[in-house]
């Protein structure tokens, strides 16, 4: 139901010699929630795509429950930032998409169809989608679409749920709702979750551990263990929470820059008359 993920010396060099990831070693416990943050271009999405098997690696190994990853598989489903839903299928048909695939039918027992039916309804309710069961994706808001994408990924009963900036295109209010929904999903489904984001607050609020990647080439800079037990909205205002968030943000800023002024703000011209 849930699995460990182990990265051993995972390296990525793009054709042309651009080193996206220098050797990365990382062990993720079964059932834990790991967030990967870092400056843009640090290779966090590339790392996630290598775990998914969507991107090839130049060296190293990825082990899921001890078994090496060779290409994508239903044990590691992925939620994308946008445009991944099938617009010709209704909400429920999208959630049940994996049932049309041979990989999901071949190993089924006799009661599989009834069980899948039950599970899809349960996921529909878990994600608060019951009202829009028969709607087309084009009729939904961005937040509702991402709920469908998450339910569809969970329908395959993955051991690891991979999320690539899943809320990056949502507004701040919707994002907060999605955070609490994800925490609810985590406690209900108990799956290993690897979550890539550029939003540090999101990472600290959701994860058990936050991995900071540094760019050029991508490598692990720091790993922060998040100590908070209860994740409620009050936590966002907690001084410890804010301090941790600040510390991680400063690490990202420090790793991104080539000096004290990485964004070149001091060189800005005087106000234009």
């Amino acid at each position, binding site marked *: 139901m849930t699995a460990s993920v182990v990265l051993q010396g995972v390296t990525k060099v793009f054709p042309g010699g651009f080193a996206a990831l220098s050797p990365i070693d990382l062990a993720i416990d079964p059932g834990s929630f790991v967030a990967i943050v870092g400056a843009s271009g640090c290779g966090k999405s590339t790392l996630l795509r290598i775990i998914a098997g969507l991107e090839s690696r130049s060296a190293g190994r990825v082990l899921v429950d001890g078994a090496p990853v060779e290409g994508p598989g*239903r044990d590691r489903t992925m939620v994308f930032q946008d445009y991944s839903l099938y617009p*010709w299928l209704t909400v429920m048909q999208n959630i049940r998409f994996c049932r049309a*695939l041979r*990989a999901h039918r071949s190993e089924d027992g006799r009661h599989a169809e009834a069980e899948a039916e039950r599970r899809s309804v349960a996921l529909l309710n878990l994600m608060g989608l019951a009202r829009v069961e028969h709607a*087309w994706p084009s009729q939904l808001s961005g937040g509702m679409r991402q709920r469908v994408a998450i339910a569809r990924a969970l329908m395959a009963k993955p051991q690891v749920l991979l999320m690539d900036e899943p809320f990056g295109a949502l507004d701040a209010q919707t994002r907060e709702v999605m955070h609490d929904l994800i925490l609810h999903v985590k406690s209900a489904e108990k799956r290993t979750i690897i979550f890539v984001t550029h939003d540090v607050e999101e990472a600290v609020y959701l994860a058990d551990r936050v991995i900071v990647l540094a760019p050029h080439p991508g490598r692990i800079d720091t790993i922060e263990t998040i100590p908070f037990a209860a994740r409620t909205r009050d936590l966002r205002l907690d001084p410890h929470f804010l301090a941790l968030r600040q510390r991680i943000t400063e690490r990202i800023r420090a790793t991104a820059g080539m000096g004290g002024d990485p964004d070149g703000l001091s060189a800005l011209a005087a106000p234009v008359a």
Partner: protein
Amino acid sequence: MSERMEAGTKVRPARLATGSPHPSIWQIRTRLDRGRYLTLATSSFAALLMAWWAITASGAVNPMFLPSPAGVIDALVAWYRDGTLLDDIGISLWRVSAGFALSAVMAVPLGLYVGAYQPVRALFEPIMEFARYLPAVAFVPLVLLWFGLGETAKIMLIWIGTFFQMVLMIAEDASRVPMAQIEAARTLGASNHEILNLVLLRSALPAMFDTLRMTLGFAWTYLVVAELIAANSGLGFAILRAQRFMQTDRIFVGIILIGLIGLVTDQAVRRLQKRLFPWRA
């Protein structure tokens, strides 16, 4: 408080001036209601008809060069009475349908594979780009040589005129399917075959319908080319024969009929698209 009220009173006249409840229909990409759309569409046809009628009624132009609308209707009735009109329409429709269907049946799967697999693209795309610039009309003598004067020659000419364009356009439709749709299927455990059938084809289908609707127009062009050269029936042939006898009015009937058939099929396919793809916003 008082400041707010002041601001409110100041804003009001400005709002009346700029944000009227009926925004201009000339704003770029603004919406137009159905009623006004139909009114404008019909009036363009009406204007064309009126201009035509006015020129011929003025007597400034010899009817040999430009027959009057009434003259064209008379020619239509005469054509119907001599019993060949429906046969000519029927045979032309059949040729277009056969040539177009042959192209579509081959181009849709091939285009899908070109859009899906890079090796297939490398094999076929450059050669299709080359072939689509070969003038189909120049193939007429070859087609006659290879397929004779029968129906096959006409169908092949329509095929030459439409197939290569169609493959490239269908491939473009397939390659526009968002990568996230494909990758989501891959992480759910879909095989290549399943991605092709359940994602690529389904996702690109509405765009492919648009492509087929466009290329159907090309098919009519090459039908007329085929019939102008080697036929003894059909709308294109009738136009050519009318030219020999200086029956300008009959030429007009043939041209207008082809235009009308195109318009009607186009509208029918649009309706079908609305029914087949209700999820399109």
